[in-house]
C-alpha cells in the first residue's frame, strides 16, 4: 500500500489546486491492452479531513500504470501505437453509441464492452457523430483492456464536407464547444483505457477549436522527457 498525508490550510471560500509529492512505485503491475497482458488496476483514494469536523470529502478511482504512445508512420501514413514500449497491432471496432434512446446502463456497457474483448479487439473508436462516452463505458474498457480513441463532436458530413455543404465553421458557439471539451477531458482523463483524443471524424475542426484542443491536450513538458535521470524528478516535484 502507498499512503501519504499532507497538511494544508484553505482560506475561507477559496478554490485552490494542490499537487501531492509524487508517490514512488518499484516495478508496479502494469496495465496492458486486451491480448497483451493483465489489465492491472490500482485503487486510488483521496480523502480530506478538516480539523474540528472530520472527514469532509472523499474520491476514488481505478488507475492503471501504462504508457501509451502513438505517431504517424512515414512509410504507411498510418498511426502506430505502442503500449509500455511494446508496439501493438490495433484490432479496432467502430462505436457510435449503445442505444438510440440513450438507455445506457452499467449492465449494458459491461455486456457491450466484454463482447468487444471477446471478439479479440483491443481498441474501440468512439465516432465524432456519437457521444463523448460515459465513465461507465471507460470503466469497463479499463477492466477488459480496450483502448479508446475518443473523437470530439465534429463530423465531415455535418461540418463542411457533406451534401449540402454546411457548417464549414463548425458549431455556432466555439467557446461552448471548448467548455464542453474541457469538462469532458476532466471527466474521463484518469482512465487507463483512454488512448487518444481526436478532433473529429473525417474532418479537422475549425482552426481556433483545433489549436485550442492541441494546446490544451499537450502532455505537460515535464512529463515529456521519458527516460531522463533523477533530476527530472526534482524539477517535476
Amino acid at each position, binding site marked *: 500500500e502507498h499512503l501519504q498525508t499532507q497538511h494544508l490550510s484553505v482560506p475561507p471560500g477559496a478554490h485552490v489546486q494542490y499537487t501531492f509529492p509524487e508517490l514512488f512505485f518499484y516495478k508496479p503491475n502494469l496495465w496492458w491492452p486486451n491480448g497483451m497482458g493483465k489489465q492491472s488496476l490500482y485503487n486510488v483514494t483521496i480523502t480530506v479531513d478538516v480539523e474540528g469536523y472530520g472527514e469532509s470529502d472523499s474520491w476514488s478511482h481505478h488507475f492503471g500504470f501504462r504508457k501509451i504512445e502513438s505517431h504517424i508512420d512515414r512509410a504507411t501514413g498510418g498511426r502506430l501505437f505502442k503500449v509500455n514500449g511494446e508496439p501493438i497491432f490495433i484490432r479496432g471496432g467502430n462505436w457510435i453509441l449503445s442505444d438510440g*434512446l440513450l438507455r445506457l446502463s452499467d449492465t449494458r456497457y459491461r455486456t457491450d464492452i466484454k463482447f468487444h474483448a471477446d471478439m479479440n479487439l483491443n481498441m474501440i473508436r468512439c465516432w465524432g457523430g456519437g457521444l463523448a462516452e460515459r465513465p461507465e463505458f471507460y470503466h469497463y474498457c479499463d477492466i477488459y483492456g480496450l483502448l479508446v480513441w475518443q473523437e470530439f463532436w465534429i463530423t465531415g458530413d455535418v461540418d463542411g464536407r457533406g451534401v449540402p455543404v454546411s457548417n464549414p465553421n463548425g458549431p455556432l458557439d466555439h467557446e461552448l464547444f471548448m467548455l464542453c471539451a474541457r469538462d469532458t477531458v476532466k471527466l474521463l482523463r484518469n482512465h487507463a483505457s483512454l488512448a487518444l483524443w481526436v478532433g473529429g471524424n473525417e474532418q479537422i475542426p475549425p482552426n481556433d477549436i483545433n489549436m485550442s484542443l492541441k494546446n490544451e491536450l499537450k502532455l505537460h513538458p515535464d512529463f515529456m522527457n521519458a527516460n531522463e535521470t533523477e533530476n527530472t524528478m526534482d524539477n517535476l516535484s
Partner: protein
Amino acid sequence: MAEIGKIKLHSGWLAARSTDVEIGGTQLTTTHPPTGPTSPWMEAVVPGTVLGTLVKNKVVPDPFYGLENETIIDIADSGREHYTFWFFTTFQCKLSGNQHLDLNFRAINYSAEVYLNGHRMVLPRGMFRRHNLDVTDILHPDGQNFLAVLVFPPDHPGTIPTEGGQGGDHEIGKDVATQYVEGWDWIAPIRDRNTGIWDEVSIAVTGPVKIIDPHLVSTLFDDYKRVYLYATTELKNKSSWVASCSLNIQVTAELEGNICLV
C-alpha cells in the same frame, strides 16, 4: 447528520409535456407538486431521454421495431415545445452544521431550468458538460425536497429532408450536441434528438472542504521499473473560516481472485 458521499437520484421521477402543465416550476416545487403518475404526469426514465420515457409509457411505439419510427412525429414537424418536458422528483436530505449539498447533473441535452423548493436555477446549453449546483441554503429544514427540471431540446434540431441523408440538413451541427440524431446511412432520425436528462443525476454531501476533479498522472522510467504517480486535485473551502486540512492519498492494488484484505 447526513452521510458524506454521493447519492444517485435515479428513481421516483415523473415527467409531463411542458405544454400540458399550466403551472410553473415554482408552484411545482412548493404549493402544487405532482402527486403521482396521473395525467399529464407519467413515470419517467432518468437518466434517459424524452422518447425513452414516452416509449416506456407506451405513448409512442418503440422506434426500433418495423417502421414504427415513421409513426412518431419528428421535432421538426411538432416544434421544440412538443419535446420540451418537465421532470419531477423528491429527495430526502437533512444536513447538520458545516455540511454542504451539491446537486449534480452529469449531462443534460440540451439546456434546462431547475427548480428546487421554489428556487430557480438555469443549466446553460451544451450536451457534453457537467452541471454542479450548491443547494445547501435552499433545502427544506424538514428534509423533504421537491425538484423539477424543465428540459429543452437542442436549439437547432433541424429538418429531415425527404431523401434523408447523413445528418439530415446538418442544422444540429450548429449546436454542441451529438450529430447522428438527424439520421445517418445506418440509423433513422431520432424524433426528439435525444433531448433529456441523459446521464447521472446525484446529490453529494460534503463537509466544509470539497474535492474537485483530481488528476492522476504516472511517469515511467528504467524500463517501467521506476514509476511515479502524481496526483493533483482542486479543493474548495465552502465555509467562512480557514480550514486546516489533512489531505490523504492511498493507493492499493486491486485484489485478484479470492484474495481478501483483512
